[in-house]
């Protein structure tokens, strides 16, 4: 039992940035940003890949809100990523190719889709959610395949050229601007989510995860809260999808693929659910291992990924983020 914790510090009620920063280990965040920046200088010829990793991090963060915090298992999160991607692509093609506006459009479109599908999904439980979420993403994939005149069909949506960011920073073809753009959005999303998970709303999400029965008993409308969480997550997934569309200037129906939805779940499990940082670590690890293994052996890389998942799930079931605690626990045990 600890008798001194941040909670026991007398609360003045006023929000204080000094206290806020003191309460949390800012150096972790700074170190993570430094690592991303280091990648920029270390791998100047792999910026496309590095940027892709950052985009997927945003997507996995959005999943963490739903799966890690609220405990809703979905295998169709790509539905929201894909919606954001197509919305941003179509918007750039037909309206304006402003990147920032495109992000907003992607976020709005995906949150609308999340809200509507959430009305159905959040009524269901467990395996049913899993099945429905897969079905939903596959329907969207089929639509994007079929509606060729709008979406470009199986060839994908192409032909849009993004404007400079804020009218100043032009996208270059090595991907330098793209990297900084995505990193900036990732940082913004991360700060936003840190605030969300520390808020009353975030606490309620954890409550729903841990005991739906008890949440109802304290008067929470659990269903609507879940729909709200899913909608918020949709907005962030949509931002990730929009970024992907803007960076590659191409959207293919593969953005809805169930394999993609499954991969991001694995990334989150690898890193550790319900702590945001797990999404960052899990994504980086999964994608780097995937990238490396696939370039060494394009046919058998799945074995490497499978092995990695098995090892982590077996030895650190709570994800890599729990590794220090796990080592401490094992070492501390008398032999």
């Amino acid at each position, binding site marked *: 039992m600890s008798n001194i914790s941040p909670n026991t510090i007398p609360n003045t*009620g006023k929000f204080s940035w000094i206290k806020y920063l003191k309460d949390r280990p800012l150096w972790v965040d700074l170190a993570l940003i430094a690592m991303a920046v280091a990648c920029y200088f270390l791998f100047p010829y792999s910026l496309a890949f590095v940027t892709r990793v950052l985009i997927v991090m945003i997507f996995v963060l959005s999943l963490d809100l739903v799966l890690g915090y609220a405990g809703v298992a979905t295998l169709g999160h790509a539905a929201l990523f894909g919606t954001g991607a197509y919305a941003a692509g179509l918007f750039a093609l037909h309206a304006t190719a402003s990147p920032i506006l495109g992000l907003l459009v992607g976020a709005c479109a995906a949150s609308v889709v999340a809200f509507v599908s959430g009305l159905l999904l959040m009524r269901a439980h467990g395996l049913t959610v899993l099945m429905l979420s897969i079905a939903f993403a596959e329907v969207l994939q089929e639509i994007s395949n079929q509606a060729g005149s709008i979406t470009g069909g199986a060839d994908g949506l192409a032909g849009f050229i993004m404007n400079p960011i804020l009218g100043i920073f032009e996208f270059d073809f090595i991907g330098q601007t793209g990297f900084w753009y995505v990193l900036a959005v990732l940082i913004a999303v991360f700060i936003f989510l840190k605030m969300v998970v520390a808020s009353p709303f975030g606490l309620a999400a954890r409550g729903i995860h*841990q005991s739906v029965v008890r949440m109802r*008993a*304290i008067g929470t409308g659990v269903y609507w809260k879940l729909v709200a969480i899913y909608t918020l997550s949709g907005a962030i997934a949509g931002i990730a999808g929009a970024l992907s569309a803007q960076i590659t200037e191409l959207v293919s129906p593969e953005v809805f693929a169930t394999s993609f939805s499954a991969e991001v779940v694995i990334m989150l499990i690898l890193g550790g659910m319900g702590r945001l940082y797990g999404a960052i670590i899990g994504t980086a690890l999964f994608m780097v291992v995937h990238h490396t293994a696939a370039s060494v052996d394009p046919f058998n890389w799945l074995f490497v990924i499978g092995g990695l998942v098995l090892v982590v799930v077996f030895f650190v079931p709570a994800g890599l983020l729990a590794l220090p605690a796990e080592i401490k626990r094992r070492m501390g045990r008398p032999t």
Partner: protein
Amino acid sequence: MSAGLQVKNLNKNFGGITVASNINIDLPPGARTALIGPNGAGKTTFANLITGILPPSSGEIYLDGKNISGLNEAARVKAGIAKTFQITTLFKELNVREHLRLAILERNGFTSRLFRRANSDAAIEAEIDERLDQMNLSKLADMAINNMAYGQQRLVELAMTLALKPRILILDEPAAGVPSSESYLIIEAVAKLDRDLAVLIIEHDMKLVFEVANSIIVLVNGEILTEGTPAEISANPQVRSLYLGERHE
């Protein structure tokens, strides 16, 4: 129009089995009523019908004269009906303080707030401290629920339920699983409750029932067998044979 809770002709069938049969109960403000009866009599079911966890087959429930039968569970909590569970269902990864915080935030309708920290409301934090103190839980405030003794968990549950400021409080076997050495904590907590609160306590422990209740309802096979003061009930030969486990001579 009468204050408090009125249950009128409440029935509940599971398939062909009747577990609540024509139940009428009046729970005015200040009531300290115990609901007793053998295992499987339908006590928990009855509590779940009142709180809206289960839909009744027929019958109505009124709160302060208003028919609340159509409200769902969460809405009934907001209307002022709260219940503790027979088996605790707490948040296994939240500490005691966070349990109370969540309940109070929800009571105030604050759980939709995104842009402030959950622990940044000074009035709420002060209320948490006060409630922890009342239940002798202050020292355990930062302890994870999983590491607490069962009796303490029941106190947390009770504190959390009271934090909802209900007008009707239903306690489903609050002392179940609590070592008898600790059941006085529950008795004390109930004794300290606001006088105006209407309390329905479902309990097996007769010592506890006689200490806190001034009126007892005996439920058998989903039907009210009899009701009366503790003295009347303990003198009732039917109750003694059916419930208190004494044989007819």
